[in-house]
């Protein structure tokens, strides 16, 4: 017999080796991701106040950022105009019970907070009317967020717009904005036409908002939400 078994054996072993190398290369190239696509519209909820809410996969990070975020929040909401105009604070539409603490608890917390602030106010002569906003909303914050569909993004950090001086107008400013995968605010579109100063104030404060970043295994897309800043004269 002319063909030798040994040669075939050698050939087949080298071929097998090569094939496995190719398979490993293919494994390298193929990106198997268990991505799920997040909802296009999101419900925005307040992760920052919730110890009671489910922390989720990145709960620890959440608590850390919360600690960082809170003091900032206080400083930014100061420096309100001394007039009696301000942004009124209707109830937030956040209905997701998992992410929002019970109103009763929250009220207590908020009351505590305001008490502290009151003592602060006395010492520091800064007009702190804006701070009252937190207490006024009965456990919620001074803006309406509308959303379509489900899915949630927690808010890590937010500021409320100041009522610009020299404007005498009561209007709800509706803004549609996108939340980038990293939690920052992307494009901002005004849905209501109003005084440019009001618009600017609303947009400027919205730009500073920070949301919970999307988890790394989620598809990194922008999510859309609509927010309403109700400017009210007082």
């Amino acid at each position, binding site marked *: *017999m*002319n*063909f030798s*078994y040994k040669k*075939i*054996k050698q*050939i*087949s*072993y080298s*071929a*097998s*080796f090569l*094939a*496995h190398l190719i398979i*490993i290369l*293919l*494994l*390298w190239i*193929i*990106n*198997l*991701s*268990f991505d799920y696509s997040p909802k296009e519209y999101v419900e925005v909820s307040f992760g920052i106040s919730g110890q009671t809410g489910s922390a989720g*996969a990145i*709960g620890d990070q959440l608590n850390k950022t919360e600690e960082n975020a809170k003091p900032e929040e206080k400083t930014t909401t100061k420096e309100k105009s001394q007039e009696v105009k301000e942004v009124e604070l209707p109830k937030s539409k956040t209905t997701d019970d998992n992410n929002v603490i019970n109103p009763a608890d929250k009220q207590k917390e908020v009351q505590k907070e305001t008490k502290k602030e009151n003592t602060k106010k006395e010492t520091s002569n800064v007009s702190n009317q804006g701070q009252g906003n937190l207490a006024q909303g009965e456990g919620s914050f001074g803006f309406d967020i509308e959303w379509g569909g489900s899915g949630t993004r927690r808010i890590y950090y937010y500021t409320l717009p100041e009522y610009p001086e020299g404007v005498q107008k009561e209007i709800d400013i509706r803004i549609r904005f996108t939340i980038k995968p990293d939690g920052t605010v992307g494009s901002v579109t005004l849905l209501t036409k109003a005084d440019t100063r009001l618009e600017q104030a609303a947009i400027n404060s919205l730009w500073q908002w920070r949301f919970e970043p999307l988890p790394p*295994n989620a598809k990194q897309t922008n999510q859309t939400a609509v927010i309403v800043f109700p400017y009210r004269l007082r």
Partner: protein
Amino acid sequence: MNLFEIFLKGGFIMWLILATSIVGLAVVIDRFLVLRKARINVPAFMVRIRGFIKKKDISGAISYCMEEKSPVANIVRKGLKKYKYGHDRVKEAIENAGSQEISKLEKGLTILATVAGIAPLLGFLGTVTGMIQAFMTIQDLAGAANPSDLAGGIWEALITTAFGLIVGIPALAFYNYFLSAVKRLVGEMETVANDVVDVIQEGEAEEAEIDDEIEL
């Protein structure tokens, strides 16, 4: 996440499974080449060989068998070499050569069967060790592990089972395929060998008859 990263998550058992996979595929390629070369057109071959033997052109038949280069031709050639010693010796030589050829054809199939059995078992071993690790970490965390810790350990452990089955299932399929192919070849060999022996026997009988006639 890259598939290769997932592969690495399986731990060192994954490398054992990869080794069995390499050996298994090598055997598959080896058997495939060998069995493809072993396959011949039996009726055509028989017609040619009968022609040679009837013409008593044994050297011609042997050279034809050399050209064919298949196990069937090989055993026929080995048998024909003993032509002059009578059909009993031819049969003996063919049987000997046949068992040799069969062992050559079946070589490596036991390895393939072992791979088919061992790869999934290695996978299970990897899963069990992975589970042990996962539960150990949970104990270390004093029960404060969140579900993602548990799930992470478990899916990493299950990877080895998946890869073990990926290697084992085709190995088993190929093993059975090659086994049936060898069986078919052995059957062909038997028919060819019997036929050749028959033809030689007939030739001898005719010669004996002619001898008888001459004597008469």
